[in-house]
């Protein structure tokens, strides 16, 4: 499979703070979620991919171009939807989107035609002659997507695209992203896990500037039969220690129910064997349906 984005040992510093630390990862084609808590380095990674931030070390290739050597060639083929509220002042929606198209190299007439088309696509067809400053938050998110799409990029970088949107708008935005992710590769940066779960096939989880985990979401979630909710009576701490010794991870030990992840190469019966050895009673055991939250929590070590 071709990787539209490849990072090798990328480190980005803000002064003395390391925002990205020796990141090496390849983003596959299709929709890839870039997950991480606030401050994990998601936006930094996106800005570095656009050549807006210069890494202290490492190399980045986007659509076959070295970002350090050909940032303009990268930006010509990439659409970027920034996280914060942004527009060109004094323009109505159609002029704004057409202007962005022209900045990306579309001829004047084509840019205007494409602006109309894209504005209808994102659901702003009726409001396209309104000044962007008068738009609601949801509409501003849509027009940011429109300006990122107008030049028909091969890769779309979306930074928190559903921020501030109502449930219906959010659903529509995610629907658009799924639709776009067919012909165009999409990197969706978000800390909203259901959004990524809905729109993406793959995920890269960043935590404190390093890649905590990455891969297809389905594979990371694993077999539903391998995750169990367990409640025990007895020395819980000793039980957890014993599980860890045989290579079984558990989370949420301090609560009533713990979540136990049994690796694929270990039989589930091992749980009972460990419990019997430690003299602990298993009072509750149920196969858990794994979610992206669990993948995320595991990756972050929570």
């Amino acid at each position, binding site marked *: 499979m071709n990787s539209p984005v490849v990072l090798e040992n990328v480190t980005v510093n803000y002064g003395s*703070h390391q925002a990205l630390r020796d990141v090496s990862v390849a983003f596959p084609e299709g929709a890839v979620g870039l997950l991480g808590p606030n401050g994990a380095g998601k936006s930094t990674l996106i800005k570095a991919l656009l050549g807006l931030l210069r890494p202290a070390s490492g190399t980045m290739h986007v659509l076959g171009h070295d970002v350090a050597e050909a940032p303009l060639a990268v930006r010509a083929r990439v659409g970027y939807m920034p996280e914060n509220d942004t527009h060109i002042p004094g323009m109505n929606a159609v002029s704004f989107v057409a202007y962005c198209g*022209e900045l990306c190299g579309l001829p004047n007439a084509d840019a205007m035609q494409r602006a109309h088309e894209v504005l209808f*696509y994102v659901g702003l067809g009726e409001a396209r002659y309104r000044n962007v400053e008068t738009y609601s938050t949801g509409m501003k998110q849509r027009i940011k997507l429109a300006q990122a799409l107008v030049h028909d990029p091969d890769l779309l970088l979306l930074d928190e695209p559903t921020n501030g949107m109502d449930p219906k708008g959010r659903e529509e935005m995610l629907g658009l992203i799924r*639709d*776009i992710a067919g012909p165009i590769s999409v990197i969706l940066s978000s800390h909203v896990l259901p959004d990524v779960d809905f729109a993406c096939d793959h995920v890269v989880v960043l935590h404190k500037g390093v890649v905590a985990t990455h891969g297809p979401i389905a594979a990371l979630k694993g077999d539903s039969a391998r995750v169990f909710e367990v409640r025990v009576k007895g020395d819980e701490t000793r039980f957890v220690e014993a599980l860890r010794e045989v290579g079984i991870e558990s989370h949420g030990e301090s609560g009533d129910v713990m979540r136990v992840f049994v690796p694929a190469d270990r039989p589930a019966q091992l749980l009972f064997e460990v419990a019997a050895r430690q003299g602990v009673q298993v009072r509750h055991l149920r196969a858990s349906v794994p979610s992206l939250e669990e993948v995320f929590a595991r990756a972050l070590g929570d």
Partner: protein
Amino acid sequence: MPIHNQGYRRYAGERMGRHGRWLVIARAGIIERLRERRFLALMLMAWLLFLVRAVQLYVGTTLVRASFFAPSDETFHSFLNQQRLFVFFITIYAGAGLIASDRQANALQLYLSKPITRHDYIGGKLATLATFLTVVTWVPAMVLLALQVLFSGSLEFVASHPRLVPAITITSVLQVTLASMTMLALSSLSRSRRFAAMLYALVAIFTGALERVLQTATGTAAWVLLSPQNTLLVVSDALFGIESEREIPVAVALIAIVMLLGICVVVLERRVRPVDVVA
């Protein structure tokens, strides 16, 4: 019944080369400003003096009795000097928001995430303002010269004043460049166009007044270097071959102008960035 595909459709048209992207920015800036009636009125007012001068030229050239109206180097020098008032107002009106408004709307990261460089961006903004300023300085001065040729029916005046065309051109270029670069640099310092306008007015008016006060108090002509506008006058006087009130060498005045332009470039270099890094 035909079914319209409402899914995402790819663009199959042509794409232009990378060169000339600054022109897109300049054209958008010019069109946006020309949509404002108040600005159009200001531009028209800036040509009123041209009309007066055109009549003066006609009278001076065609009527023997009105020979005191006959054109000279001083006619064009004083015309450009008088246009400074409109240069000031147009710079503030059209220039204060050029970068400040973009900063306020977070538009810089939008611009610089497109396949354009910072130089394209600054060049486009500079060209926007410089176009308007050229329309009220170099263009009317050259049209006046053309009218003189037309009214007199010969090129004798132009031939006998060989320094006139270069003097008009260089003075206009310096005037336009200095005003545009200063305004752009000040505009990049703020997110408010009003604040940027106030800063420019302060630089233009306060430095001039300060120069006068200090010069009167100390009797030293070098204080003129405090005022960019008056420093430019020293160069302009030399170009037109007119004795200057301010007794400082032209080379020093030119160095001062180049230094000011250098400061503007440094400010723009530091302030026009896609990402503000607070380390």
